[in-house]
């Protein structure tokens, strides 16, 4: 097997984008569109920059990028309008055992 390495351990931008971290958490953030005021506080606090307020016609609300959300819950705890809830992922809900 032969691999390629960059001289000087040089890294190019956006390498971390390739590493989808959305499967890391046990919970994920779910936004209630009705309660969201698009105040953008969650945007400021998300340590991974994966919640963003977007416009959909007349509506404007926060959208979570589940490819990268690690389920830390920071957005839910800073939201003053209780518009973000942390919910257990389906994987952990199913019960057969």
């Amino acid at each position, binding site marked *: 097997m032969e691999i390629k390495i960059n001289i000087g351990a040089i890294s190019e931008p956006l390498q971390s984008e390739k590493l989808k*971290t959305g*499967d*890391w*958490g*046990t*919970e994920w953030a779910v936004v209630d569109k009705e309660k969201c005021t698009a105040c953008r506080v969650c945007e400021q606090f998300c340590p991974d920059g994966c919640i963003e307020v977007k416009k959909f016609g007349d509506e404007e609300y926060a959208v979570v990028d589940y490819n990268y959300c*690690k*389920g*830390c819950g920071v957005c839910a705890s800073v939201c003053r309008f209780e518009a973000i809830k942390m919910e*257990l992922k389906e*994987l*952990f*809900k*199913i*019960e*057969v*055992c």
Partner: protein
Amino acid sequence: MLIEVRFHGRGGQGVVTAADFLAIVGFKEGYYTLSFPTFGAEKRGSPVASFLRISDEPIVVRDEVYYPDYVVVLDPSVFEVVNVTSGLKENGMLIANYPKGSEDLKTIVKNVEVATINATKIAMKILGRPITNTTMVGAFAGATKLFKLEKLKETAEEVFEGSLAEKNKLAIEEAYKYMKEVCRWK
């Protein structure tokens, strides 16, 4: 006798603590033990592994466990990213936190004996957090019958403090009893 165990999970779930915990329990049961972690990125959530050796003679080797007798998985989502059963011995066993059950798991990992438990549910119910290490410690002991429940509880009292010790003892006991029932035919 040398028993080698590999633990898989994600940073923050207590993968390292699980191995360390069992190293203490093993020592209490009169064995020589050695546990140590590997780290990828030092981040909560990233896949991590840790290792445990249990032996009746002093342990001098410190290489990673390539051919485990048991594999313990603390998080059901790591199956997609890590080949957890790599090198698992033919008569070995996979003990997993896997809510969908052993039949479903057998479709993913083939030719391996599996025992499953919904450790996340137990941890959420008793500890209020999805940290599954002590639950899986109980499951491991119940499935392998290597250690006595009293020794696990005794260790929990040393490792944790106050109400956390009580809660973890409950989680260990529930998982231990459940797994002992599941694996009674083994």
